[in-house]
């Protein structure tokens, strides 16, 4: 018996609770736990932030971050990595603030074209067996260049309908929270509950088996990337809906944020193991930790960037500690 299987066998004899191992449960809850901890921290530091208005403000940017994180999640499910999602979001933002407003038909066509490019990249990566890190690295330059060509200087304006959508203020529950729930539910149902979603995830877990069963790996790869492109477009549009104007560099931090969000949410780089709900929670956690929490803690601006790193490390350390006990 292989080494991996025998340790799996060992843990298979741990006590079960309603069909779920207690430590596995703890691990799955970790994203939610970290989010709660950060919320507690915020509440303690600045109680007034825990209000409709406060959440609306703090979680403002959570929507585009969550969308970008889901985009990255689709790519990671297929054992790839998208290093271009950040600059892609920036490019989409620039298109949104210019063409989508001034010439909606052209704008829409460009965005649809961008999604097709993503799908084509997925197909290319499969057909030529390319390392996605390098391909998306190259594409990050492409999207950045296109964004700069479109908007050499910050400017443009978001279309009115987008401003209205993102400025929507529902009663009782802040819009960002509703949006996050919707995004999480859609992604969860799509990837985890549908029958084709199982095929998509299987393509990440054991591609040879999937292709032997008669499914087209070319299709699964192209679809995963197309989904990433779609959510990337949504992320860019949402971002501009909030910031009202665009600049070519606006999305650059999203690449690493999205990767961190997926991992925080319990996903892993290989094996097709991801959690859409965890990813959204991870994105929310990062959105809160990235700025509001630090501001409330009065961390000097010099150290804000460093504090981001520290928070990431703390959460992952917690996950490691729990995983280690799980065996």
């Amino acid at each position, binding site marked *: *018996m*292989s*080494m*991996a*299987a*025998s*340790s*799996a*066998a*060992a*843990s*298979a004899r741990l006590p079960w609770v309603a*069909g779920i191992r207690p430590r596995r449960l703890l691990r799955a809850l970790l994203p939610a736990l970290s989010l709660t901890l950060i919320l507690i921290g915020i509440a303690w530091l600045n109680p007034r932030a825990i209000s409709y208005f406060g959440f609306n403000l703090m979680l403002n940017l959570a929507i585009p971050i969550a969308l970008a994180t889901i985009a990255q999640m689709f790519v990671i499910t297929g054992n790839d990595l998208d290093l271009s999602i950040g600059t892609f979001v920036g490019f989409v933002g620039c298109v949104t603030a210019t063409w989508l407003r001034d010439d909606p038909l052209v704008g829409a066509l460009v965005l649809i074209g961008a999604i097709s490019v993503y799908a084509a990249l997925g197909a290319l990566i499969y057909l030529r067996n390319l390392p996605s890190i390098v391909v998306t690295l190259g594409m990050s330059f492409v999207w950045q260049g296109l964004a700069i060509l479109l908007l050499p200087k910050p400017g443009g304006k978001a279309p009115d309908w987008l401003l209205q959508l993102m400025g929507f203020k529902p009663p009782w529950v802040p819009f960002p929270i509703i949006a996050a729930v919707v995004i999480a539910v859609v992604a969860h149902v799509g990837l985890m*509950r549908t*029958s*084709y979603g*199982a*095929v998509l*995830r*299987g393509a*990440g*877990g*054991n591609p*040879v*088996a*999937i292709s*032997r*069963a*008669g*499914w087209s790996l070319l299709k699964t790869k192209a679809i995963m990337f197309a989904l990433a492109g779609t959510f990337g477009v949504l992320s860019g549009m949402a971002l501009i809906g909030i910031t009202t104007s665009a600049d070519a560099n606006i999305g650059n931090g999203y690449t690493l944020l999205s990767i961190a969000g997926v991992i925080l949410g319990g996903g892993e780089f290989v*094996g*097709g*193991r991801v959690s859409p709900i965890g990813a959204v929670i991870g994105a929310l956690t990062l959105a809160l930790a990235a700025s509001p929490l630090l501001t409330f803690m009065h961390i000097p601006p010099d150290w804000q960037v460093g504090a981001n790193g520290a928070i990431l490390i703390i959460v992952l350390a917690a996950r490691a500690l729990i995983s280690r006990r799980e065996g």
Partner: protein
Amino acid sequence: MADAGATVIVRLDGVEKHFGAVRALDGVDFSVSAGECVGLVGHNGAGKSTLMHVLAGTLAPDDGGIAVGGADQIGYAVVLAQRLGIRCVFQELSLCPNLTVAENARINHAALKGLGWRRRAGDLILAKLDEIFPGHGIGPGDVVRDLPIGKRQMVEVARAFTVTVDPLRLVILDEPTSSLDSQTAGQLLAFVRRVVAGGASGVLISHLLGEVLENSDRIVVMRDGKVVAADRAAAFDRDKLVTAMGAAGKPAHADAERAAERPTAAPVRVRARPERQADGAELVAHEGEVIGLAGLSGHGQTELLLAIFNGAARRTDRIEVTAPVALVAGDRQADGIFPLWSIGQNIGIRSIAGLRKGLLISRASEEEFAAAWQKKMNIRTPDIRNNILSLSGGNQQKALFARALGSDARIVLMDDPMRGVDIGTKREVYELIRQEARNGRTFLWYTTETDELENCDHVYVFRNGRIVADLRRGELTEEKVIQSSFQAAG
């Protein structure tokens, strides 16, 4: 039992397949009729798996024809094969570890979609598991990654027999019992016999000749890409099969020299107590001994070996190891092989520090070392500098042995290394182990094949992570081992 007039389900005519210079299939005629189970035997590299891949549609032959149900097939591929009712369970498991059992069932059945697919898939696979392996203890919501390898194999096998839209005409089983313990193996083979009696067909590939002889109607023997013998199963016996397969030399019991008792005055090399052991029993291995670890698979043998392997670096109160340790893995792909390297580099990696001249590795020393071990292990390859994957499975295993034996390790742990290895290779390696033991090396050998335990001085039988019996050479019989492994632990 197939009568002479039974319909032919599938026929391969003059099939050829080359991989570069290697002739995997050299003009093979093969057919299976309805209601018969065909046993397929041969050394590793004889072409059995390749032939089955062609049959299942996962490999396209370079030449030759395939006819299913009497109709010639053009552009035969996996999807077509499935539609025609041909399923297979290959040696490399085809489950997605990140999906649940039910989801894995869905993967094989495109028809399981739409609302409620999860429930239907779960019911389908559960029903089949209950039918083949009563008392299996597997739930449709279990994630495959969490299942031990025996249960994974059960799921894989059960899945192959599930039917939704396409009929089930022929099931190909390639080493299906290699990860199963004797009880579940028996359940599977009994099921296959029932299915065949009901009119479907089966192809059974196994290195366990006893299994093949007992469960096949007809046996086909392959050697070097060709079919060299084919007849009713009753016309063969073990020795005839071995001869046809091409293994020269003495049968397994010939070596009577093992009778000499190991002097227990030799120094103790390993002392190890399993984590769950309550009664203080422990495994003790002296220098020059060959110690067997037996019992149903997955009952703590591998864990103890790993603990001993780690114990060489870090002493604990459970484990005591007094000499360098090496481990020969059974799962070559996952635990042993460095796929980008040559055979020579794979062999030398444990001893690399000693192959230096000054600070740098000496190419000459490396090649000398590799050549010496190729000769000693009789590794069949035209050039030791070829990539390791150019070797057949049995020869790859020999390379892994060479790596361990060529190092300075005095204790060699073996984690069921003979799984899926052909008889010829096995015999050569057994002899080598006996020789090395005479020269003072200690072997700890976990094996799932009770036959192999005859090579051991002592056998510790495991159950539920504990040692439940300690049998000396003289007391060793297959019945005793199986009996103790089923007893409740003390």
